[in-house]
């Protein structure tokens, strides 16, 4: 990639916004998964009695729904990221491609109105 193209992209406000928003969002969600998972692991290691304790009068223990919650949370948090990325991050990426005049631009995945130079409100 030519140096001036790199600089052009880096100076595009859309690019700065994309990198800033997406990495902050990605790290935040990754951290949430780690908190949930290592929290679950820590409970299994340190408080086995709580995980085995009964929720009601039956045999169901706290561990089982908490474990299923970790599975659901994992899938849900991935879906939340992909949803935002499909709407917002792809619009920014398309705008960056347009501004860079790159012939490799992917077909616009969103109906963001793009003029040159474009700035996406997202």
């Amino acid at each position, binding site marked *: 990639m030519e140096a001036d193209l790199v600089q052009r992209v880096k100076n595009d406000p859309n690019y700065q916004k994309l990198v800033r928003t997406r990495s902050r969002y990605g790290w935040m969600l990754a951290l949430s998964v780690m908190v949930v998972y290592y929290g679950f*692991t820590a409970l299994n290691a340190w408080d086995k009695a709580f995980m085995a304790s009964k929720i009601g009068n039956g045999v169901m223990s706290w561990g089982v729904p908490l474990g299923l919650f970790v599975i659901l949370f994992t899938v849900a948090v991935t879906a939340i*990221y992909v949803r935002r990325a499909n709407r917002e991050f792809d619009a920014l990426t398309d705008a960056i491609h347009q501004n860079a005049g790159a012939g490799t631009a992917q077909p616009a995945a969103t109906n963001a109105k793009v003029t040159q130079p474009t700035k996406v409100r997202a």
Partner: protein
Amino acid sequence: MTKTTRIFSYLAAAFALLALAGSAMAAPDLGQATKQATNWTAIAMFAVFVLLTLFITKWAAKRTRSASDFYTAGGGITGFQNGLAIAGDFMSAASFLGISAAVFLDGFDGLIYAIGFLVGWPVLTFLMAERLRNLGRFTFADVAAYRFAQKPVRLFAASGTLVVVLFYLIAQMVGAGQLIKLLFGLDYWIAVVLVGILMMVYVLFGGMTATTWVQIIKAVMLLAGTTFMAFSVLSMFNFSPEQLFAKAVEVHAKGDAIMGPGTFIKDPISGISFGMALMFGTAGLPHILMRFFTVPSAKEARKSVLWATTWIGYFYVLVFIIGFGAIVLVGTNPAFKDAAGKLLGGNNMAAVHLAKAVGGDIFLGFISAVAFATILAVVAGLTLSGASAVSHDLYATVIKKGQTTPGSELRVSKITTIALGIIAVLLGIVFQSVNVAFMVSLAFAIAASANFPVLFMSVLWKGCTTRGATVGGFLGLITAVGLTVVSKSVWVDVFHNKAAIFPYTSPALFSMIVGFVGVWLFSVTDSGPRAAIDKAGFEAQEVRSETGIGAAGATAH
């Protein structure tokens, strides 16, 4: 008749003969406790699967001309298809039979084990998937070595790939051998040879296209089969988990202890360390990373991980229900046990026996065929990633310094595929008695300690240099393997020493730190001329990794 058609008809005939030979030889051995009578329903269903996949391989062979077709199916797989293929690549027989067996034995502990395999996916999605797709073409070394001196970093990446692939392959081969011996009544060595030949055929002729479709078909079969089993189990308890669990607690030898954590997490350090191996190992498995290069864009890469995570999460919920179903329906039925009260064929057969309990002989045949198909799909993916590390990283870049033609690179991949097939068969026979679950967790620990730190730091940290990536990566690799050797599983169980030097079950917590600190330390102290080039290359790499500008798209067919 064309050449390929002729090859395939020979193969079909050879498999028919091999199956017959196997069943004939199996007959006198029926007295062995671990071997089952030849299961003709299972063999017939499996034969249908093999014919279908050979037909797909023949179709894929016509479309596999260039190196890009061979390594990445031309980059033309959709996100949905790739999601299923990733799930098919990841849900191994160790997952299906191993985790259902863990639930059957210990209840809740099996759920803890299963969750570890799932939680790496979102982390991979948020931090790596799109960047990987934007930077790489064929192997994860393309990404790790993007702005560095190619030779040392690719040498490391190929070593990391081959070590992980070999450990994982041994686990799958041993699993395949034992499983087929039990399910089909074939001899162990025949089973291993059969798996070796089939995987070579898929990869050799059909490349990534055939491998992908074998994985997709297997994922659909496995998900359909396990859904039916879990549904059948729940329907017997009025779809009330409480009733199912209550009955399980009533009949299980451990009683109410199966509803809470048992001995799986021995101590907090082991628990966290094991969790880290599974979570970050997923993001360092070369055969999984390679799947991201089969889709046309970062957007499709992202979609494919969402589908994969959904299917894998759903699968583990089913496996948990299946394990409890087995406690109630298999554990209480003397027909599934030998004279000593042990499960026929060992505890790994819990899910298979449950198949018979809920669906009779035909469904048992189906699940047996699915279990075998599962192993085939995983070994095909592993072999392809090992072969591409040798041809694309070692041969083309390290040995030939980039001066190759795609044709000669492709030839090397095919030779490597045959070599890996033979090595896998031999190792599978040599390591017959190895613990499959241990080998899988070792592969994850190495992937988390060597491949993941290098990949992560090279993509996200500007200060990373060639020296840091290479030295840090090898340090992580050596530490993970070294600590495993001095841990209980090898030091005491294999070398028969009195006590283990390393007291924890997984090395990942320590070896990952060694890997990361190694990359950091040998980068910041690196002031050579190459380090300046490495750091200067970060801007262009970052722009491409974030936006995909300059990234390779799909090739037209």
